């Protein structure tokens, strides 16, 4: 009989139940969309923040201890280098997927066209890297192009390593170009300590800092000029990191002081310090350190953005919650007459409550399921329009939304059920309410 009554309600009251399902669907879709966006916004903004350039620098172990200025004095002192082939190890660390870009850099002072001394930097532009370790081949296109996203190429084109195969090309900073009257397409001669090169200028860039006075060329050209073929001086690494917290601060001082559990947690969280640590594990002769300007600011902005989105989400959730409980309440109130009739024919409070809750919950579950997919679609729309990439789906969201909807529906039914229990059949059936 219970089911017959429920079926009866569904057949007769389908409009009202549809309304409840619809509101629940709307609420669930807000919740799903906001939670998905909220959980993913950190990663998304983090990717955007990569436009600020690298947040980790890798230098040779001993270079960290040695004074550059000291080297200048002892001209013949060996500048330490890292082997270029070792850089592929970056693709094998635990957080390799968080490393968005990296590039080796070798800088040196050269004589430009037999005149002034200028700084020349050799690096990968859009290098195709293949690295094989223990039978697995890792591949990555990486280089300085993404690490200098703020460059304006004012004339000519960005150097394209893969198309303009081989060496002999360079980019020149705008200030230097203006000083020496260099324009795109010109040929320049640079003379370093170990040789000289003829380079074709593919483009002039404006960087807005000291690099406007530099020449950028391929790493191999710089290696020949400095006589360090197969080696580089420094690497810039750009990684997606989690903001530092208390654990990260302690670990940054000395990871060996952490307890076992803490160490595992630290190692498996994408803190800038744990990524640095893993880079050093992979390339023992290197010293990786955070670029504070980038790493700290990233942390701060991420934290603010996440907090902002969290609060906006909470607000939307409260809105959705109130909307749902509101409609559930009015849905039950509307049917007071019918329910009073049931009471009049001898239904107990418990039976009526069960009947009402079953109806509403089943409508809510249908609505929540529909709303969940709608919300997922909304999240994708947000991801596509704002970040040009899909918002990642989190299984946790489904769970949270399910719990939330059931709780909200039951909670929303409380005033209605309390009203039901107070109902006196005689009053209702007499046309009052």
């Amino acid at each position, binding site marked *: 009989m219970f089911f017959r009554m429920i079926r009866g309600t569904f057949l007769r009251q389908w409009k009202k139940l549809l309304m409840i399902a619809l509101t629940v669907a709307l609420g669930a879709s807000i919740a799903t969309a906001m939670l998905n966006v909220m959980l993913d916004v950190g990663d998304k903004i983090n990717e955007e923040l990569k*436009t600020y350039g690298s947040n980790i620098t890798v230098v040779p172990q001993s270079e960290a201890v040695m004074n550059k200025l000291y080297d200048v004095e002892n001209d013949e002192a060996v500048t330490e280098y890292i082997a270029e082939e070792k850089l592929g190890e970056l693709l094998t660390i635990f957080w390799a997927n968080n490393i968005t870009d990296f590039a080796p850099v070798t800088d040196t002072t050269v004589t430009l066209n037999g005149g002034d001394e200028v700084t020349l930097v050799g690096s990968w532009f859009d290098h195709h890297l293949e690295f094989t370790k223990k039978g697995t081949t890792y591949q990555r296109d990486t280089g300085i192009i993404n690490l200098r996203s*703020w460059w304006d190429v004012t004339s000519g084109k960005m150097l394209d390593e893969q198309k303009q195969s081989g060496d002999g090309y360079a980019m020149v900073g705008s200030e230097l170009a203006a000083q020496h009257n260099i324009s795109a397409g010109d040929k320049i001669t640079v003379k370093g300590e170990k040789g000289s090169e003829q380079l074709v200028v593919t483009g002039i860039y404006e960087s807005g800092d000291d690099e406007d006075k530099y020449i950028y060329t391929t790493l191999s050209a710089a290696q020949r000029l400095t006589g360090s073929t197969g080696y580089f001086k420094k690497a810039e690494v750009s990684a997606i990191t989690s903001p530092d917290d208390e654990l990260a601060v302690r670990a940054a001082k000395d990871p060996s002081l952490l307890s076992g559990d803490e160490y595992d947690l630290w190692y498996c969280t994408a803190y800038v310090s744990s990524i640095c640590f893993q880079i050093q594990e992979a390339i023992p002769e290197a010293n990786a350190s955070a670029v504070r300007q980038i790493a700290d600011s990233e942390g701060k902005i991420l934290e603010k953005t996440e907090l902002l989105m969290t609060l906006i989400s909470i607000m939307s959730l*409260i809105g959705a919650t109130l909307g749902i409980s509101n409609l559930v309440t009015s849905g039950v109130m509307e049917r007071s007459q019918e329910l009073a009739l049931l009471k009049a024919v001898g239904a107990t409070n418990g039976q009526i409550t069960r009947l009402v809750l079953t109806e509403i919950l089943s409508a809510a579950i249908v609505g929540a399921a529909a709303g969940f997919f709608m919300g997922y679609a909304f999240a994708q729309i947000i991801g596509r329009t704002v970040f040009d990439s899909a918002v990642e789906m989190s299984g946790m969201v489904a769970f949270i939304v399910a719990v939330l909807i059931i709780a909200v529906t039951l909670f929303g039914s409380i005033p209605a059920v309390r009203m039901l229990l107070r109902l006196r059949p005689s009053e209702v059936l007499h046309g009052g309410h």
Partner: protein
Amino acid sequence: MNKKRRMFVRMVTASLVRRRSRMIVALLAIIVGATILSGLGMIYFDVPRQMSAQFRSYGANIIFTPSDDGYIDKDSLEKGISCFSKEQLEGYTPYRYENTSIHNIPVTLAGTDFSGVLKTSPYWHINGSMPSSDGEALIGAKAAEKLGISVGDSISAQNSFEVTDETDLTGIPDYEIYTDPETGEKYCDHMLELKAAGILETGGSEEEYIYVTLADIQSLTLSDRGYDIVEVSVAAMQDELKDYLKQVGEKTPDISARLVKRVTASESTVLTKLEALVLIVTIVVLALTMICVATTMTAVIAERRKEIGLRKALGAQNSSIMAEFLSEGLVLGGVGGIAGSLLGFVFADIVSMNVFSSPITFRPLLLPITIAASVIVTGLACMIPIKSAVEVDPALVLKGE
């Protein structure tokens, strides 16, 4: 006519007051909707300003350098700085670099204003403390390692320069003069005692320098030659910054002001995305909330179909029924809108205080917009069910269950 209007008001108020529970349900929905509208609206309009201030943690976004080979003197710096609006100027820091040696190892000494550094380079990590008075120094981590300095150590910086006339040096407390045996030129070795207050970590080239106060570098070099570079941090977007640069260029020709592109270009990229994010989230949430308000209003009206039928049976014209129900809805929409717009402001302020630790800018225009929007949405949400209800044959409604 007057009596009729009075009865109209009497019916509308009776409906609002005596059907309290239903009306609260409807009003609550409208208030929530209006709160979300005005709250998210204020947050949306305030995000660029608030976030822009956050982005200042990347440090300076404008750099002043001397336009010729000289230096920037105090007066032109002040003139240049006066171009920025006080509210947007976060801070500025002058730097003056000198090559000196410490324990006979050459080191670059940078004179600066440490209170400005806090604003233009908030990312500096200091072990120990920031120098608070003359005679204290901040040692770059690399320099400290090479020189073997740790916090609290005393160091003496040495500056050598050629002297032609020894009488120039009268009044200077602590110097030594020696003569180059080969050339016969006289040199003065001037010493400055410094205490290492802290070690600086940045992960950048700053770690190679030793930072002291401007007064110290003046007394060490015995000259007051002005600054090599000035870092300026301004809370503004790229386009606005470009306007400022033009003004600075016009006002002080001996300063060449440049954007730190790495910071400004990236900031505008990220900020644009953030703004778009908040905008689209606002739109999605708003649309869904409005639909929620509409469904609630629809439900509230729909349950009164019988009453509408009765009024028709009593001889009411469709138009007068609509007028009554609509004015009920409009009263609800108005009251809900007013309450919601104020609550939304409170909410936005809470968010702003929590996230950015600064109050939200109150935008008065959002109040009438919120109220108008909630009146319109409520009105439309009422119209639809009323319209369908008045079309129904009263006989059917009154007969049926």
